[in-house]
């Protein structure tokens, strides 16, 4: 049963690993802005679509207006 020493130690080390990850995330400023990245994420698609479907643009804006 002395394997319990090993298992518990491993579990503690894993926990410490996650704890260090958390500290790093805070340090690098990941919690500073919790809004902009969520918007930014949606943009990349927008940009590609805009490059390929440039001709359809005026129709799209017309639709927007009706809304």
């Amino acid at each position: 049963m002395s394997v319990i020493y090993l298992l518990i130690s491993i579990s503690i080390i894993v926990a410490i690993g996650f704890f260090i990850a958390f500290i790093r995330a805070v340090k690098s400023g990941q919690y500073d802005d919790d809004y902009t990245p969520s918007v930014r994420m949606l943009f990349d698609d927008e940009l590609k679509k805009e490059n390929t479907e440039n001709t359809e643009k005026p129709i799209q804006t017309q639709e927007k207006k009706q809304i």
Partner: protein
Amino acid sequence: MDHTKYCFHCGLDIAPTELIVFSDKNFCCNGCKTVFEIFSQNGLESYYDLEKSPGATPLSNSNKYDFLDNEKIVKRLLQFDEGNTQIVQLNIPHIHCSSCIWILENLRKLRPEISSSQVNFHEKTVRITFNSQTISLKELVCLLGAIGYEPYISLEDYDSGKKSEDKTLTYKLGVAFFCFGNIMLLSFPEYFEMKEYWLDQYRGFFRLLIFGLSLPSFFYSASGYYVAAYKSIRSRMLNIEIPIALGIVIMFVRSVVDITFDYGPGFFDSLTGLIFFMLLGKMFQIKTYSFLSFERDYKSYFPIAVTRITDAGEENIPIYEINPGDKLLIRNQELIPADGILVSAHAAIDYSFVTGESVPVMKECGDRIYAGGRLNGALIEMGVLQSVSQSYLTQLWSNEVFEKKAKRQFQSITDKVSHYFTPVLLALAFAGFGYWIFRNTDTAFNVFTAVLIVACPCALALTAPFTLGNMLRIYGRAKFYIKNATVIEQLAKVDTVVFDKTGTITSGKLSAITYEGSYLSDNKLGWIKNIVRASNHPLSRMLYDFLPEAKNLTVDKFEEIAGYGIDARVDGNAIRIGSAGFVGAKADVSLTQTVIYISINGIVMGKYIFHNQYREGLSGLFAALHPRYDIRVLSGDNEGERAVLETLLPKDTIMVFNQKPQQKLDYIKLLQIEGKRVMMVGDGLNDAGALAQSDVGIAISENVNVFSPACDAILDASQFSRLGELLALSKKAMLTIKWSFGLSLLYNVVGLTFALTGNLMPLVAAIIMPLSTTTIVSFVTLMSNWYGRRIKQAANVVKYDKYHGLRQSEKVILSTQI
């Protein structure tokens, strides 16, 4: 008039005469059209798909950023400057929707020299990395200005280094949670008291691990409580921190003793849980509005640099280098940085930052002009009389009140309770000890420590943070932004409310207009309307909106003489619109309102009087506040509006006029000496002293993103009439806290009975502690939400405003996904 036409770019109404149609879209002005052109040429039309009419009209003032040629100033603004790479963080108040983020993060499509740009939506800032070889900061700023995203560069950016946010609490909370979670898991075998052979065998190992894990929580996470307790002992105040720190330390020592002599598993689980929950409460209490600032002083509004005229020509100097005797050049929309004398013939100066009065004041050559005014119209020259810090307005900030405010200590409701709680607790602990010492020495020590452990006022200490933290959020949704939790306690105690007049109980924007004089036929009104249409003076614009519809006539002659009025000819009639002297009327000296005289063919017809427009619901608000509060009105203006105010406000409202900024401050101080708890409601920089001196200073702001003086809370102007409800809610919050104190004391009594009888098992402590915490937290959250429900409902129906807050923008994101 067709009111259904809105500008495709900025969304404002388009005056029919100014409509510009470009590629099938309507624009209100050339500026908006130009921005659209820039975007469409660079393939950035998506800007208009993300949200309807997201833009702002660009301001055309090419010289405004000339000061960025000065390298010394540029150096201080840059965040990073090495080799060719420069990084600058700019504050752009217009950032308000997803389109804004999109366009600003795609700046590199407009200018390849910009390598990257990153928006922080909450702070309304953009961080731009660019190549300084090919594009200068000035060009960059001008580019932003040209697409309608004019950065706001103020003296504040120049002065302070970049503020680094304090993340200690986050780390402490992280450590506490880590320790708490692991200890809980490792304690499970002890909870179930399994007598199995292998668990018994490894008990020592488990306990050692638990002890090790509790160390960071005890020494690091809880360190704030020891410091606070030590401080309150030194200042001879019985704060809540004393029993908390005492409880934590005793708990730790007792637990260490328990495991060393194998008496039991110790209270490490309760100890770390307690620390974690209390830090969580602290965290919850902090609600920051990063797009707002409660600490602004004049520096946030003053420009970094001005143009000085010397014999050698013009030069840009930082405003700290302005000396009395200098000659300055002020351009349209620039701020006057120091007191001085007007050298040019006329100037219209808008003091709305200072007084809240939006109608510009006319000044003649030789008049004194004061710092803080914004120039409206053509550029002027001025001679400086005082340096910046010695000016009439800025002097206010040398008052000690601005330093004292930060240090001022309030006795919070929790402190008040702990004032009684702590002695009772200690008495009980010693009484228990005294009772048991003659019976059983071991039990006596157990009881003594158990009392202090179980009575550790965790629930008590959590009540106020969770109630007030939740209230802060409820208030925030009602567009009432409060600096911190103690302000709510202060709000509940207020018994005197002092209002500023201009800009606070009157709205800065609109003016009611009345006409006095001989009858004007529709025809004549039509002439006047056609004339004022061509003028950009704010009073002309207001008069234009006020006058009835008329058909368009050609104005044969039109001359606008700044500071006097308009000289025009319509249908062969010579018409003059302007000041009394200009049209040939006798100036009414006793009159204190803003007026425009009209003369047709040399005959003075009459005058239009511009009244202060009082905010909606003002009478209702005062009537509601009147029975419960002592209401006063404090105005920097003369007594012109006294009669009107007397009809609007309750009979015995005290009104004081002609108050200078310093006098306002002194007035508040006097009220406080009389023993009153004063709330000041103001708006301009001239109220800053009074706001700082008062117990609670509330700034009313038309646009919370742009302007507000230093204060304890900022109220969106649209919510002004609900101030009474908001005040009542603060009282309800305190009631909730009192109820919950009762509840948590009940838990303490239960815990103490266990402790005093010597039956406190670690398991009992481990149950009572989280149980009391969760019930208290859910109780206060439910109660405060229930009290705040009316506020929330009403806030939801608030009309859409152009610079909408976060909630609206969330809606915007949804609409793009459809």
